[in-house]
């Protein structure tokens, strides 16, 4: 028993003893995946600024991570993140928030900053429901699910958030579930090093709200469901849309080079200084 310490406990804020997540919540697995990426890169949390919105996923960095953390308004973390990047261009700015926060109320900031391809990392924890407020339907809730605001079953088409972000112009997009925690860490490492808007969608289990409302019994069963429905990008490429129905395509979906906003701003400033002379 002597001398074994959890390698990631050193990243936790001293005043915080444990998380407020429900038992079995996927948030903690994602928190570890992020911290493991920082650890494996040999980086320090001082190299980062974290921003989160409102919702359970937003409590991943706040107050847990022993770093500069901005826990802000619902839907807006990406906008603050842009401001922080403007002022601290050398720091890695990472947004960790949920599907409702980033794709519903925050949708506009998500697509515009993907369009700008501004250098930042955005981790979207997709639990397919509004968990913190007691289980309401969100923009990723599959049709037919009975939630507190869709008591007769959800009647809307859901987003494929990764596709949305790819269309908007992000240069790095990946999708995983909490079952692929190691692969997630590898993608986070790439995202941290990416000179552009790096977006990672992570399907995460919400056993208390989404699990109960969709008939999945508990965290372990939800993770097993993710495992069975996950299919790697390469394999999915050979399948028809019908065959892909109800599957979760996981892997790195896009990784391209394109102009990044911070670089473009530097070029613009140089032009301004030249003309001023």
């Amino acid at each position: 028993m002597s001398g074994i310490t959890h390698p990631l406990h050193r990243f936790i804020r001293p005043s915080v003893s444990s998380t407020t997540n429900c038992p079995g919540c996927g948030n903690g697995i994602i928190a570890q995946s992020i911290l493991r990426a920082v650890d494996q890169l040999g980086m320090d949390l001082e190299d980062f600024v974290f921003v989160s919105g409102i919702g359970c996923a937003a409590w991943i960095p706040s107050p847990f991570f022993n770093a500069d953390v901005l826990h802000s308004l619902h839907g807006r973390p990406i906008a603050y993140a842009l401001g922080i990047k403007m002022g601290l261009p050398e720091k890695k700015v990472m947004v960790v928030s949920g599907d409702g926060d980033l794709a519903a109320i925050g949708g506009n900031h998500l697509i515009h900053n993907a369009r700008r391809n501004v250098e930042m990392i955005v981790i979207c924890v997709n639990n397919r429901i509004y968990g913190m407020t007691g289980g309401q339907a969100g923009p990723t809730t599959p049709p037919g699910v009975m939630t507190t605001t869709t008591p007769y079953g959800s009647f809307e088409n859901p987003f494929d958030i990764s596709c949305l972000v790819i269309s908007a112009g992000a240069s790095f997009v990946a999708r995983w579930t909490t079952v692929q925690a190691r692969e997630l860490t590898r993608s986070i490492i790439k995202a941290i090093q990416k000179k552009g808007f790096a977006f990672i969608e992570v399907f995460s289990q919400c056993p208390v709200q989404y699990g109960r409302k969709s008939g999945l019994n508990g965290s372990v069963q939800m993770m097993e469901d993710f495992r069975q429905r996950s299919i790697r990008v390469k394999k999915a490429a050979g399948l028809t849309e019908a065959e892909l129905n109800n599957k979760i395509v996981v892997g790195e979906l896009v990784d391209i080079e394109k102009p990044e906003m911070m670089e473009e701003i530097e070029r613009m400033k140089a032009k301004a200084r030249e003309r001023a002379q």
Partner: protein
Amino acid sequence: MSNLRLYPDLCKGVEGCGICLAVCRSRVFKPGLMLNQKGFHLPEIVKPESCTSCEDCMIFCPDLAIAVSNKFGKR
């Protein structure tokens, strides 16, 4: 001498969570009878000798409540 360490006060219990039990391929854990401070049932390490240090329990624990000593001596 186990290469596993459980942080009892961080664990949220085998009924609500139980992920460590599910991911361990060597059946090291079983639902325990001991309660932690918060009233959660802790997992019990019943077969420490079977542990292969795959680290799955550590990686998938949402509460960072399990640590596995690194077989390559990194820590």
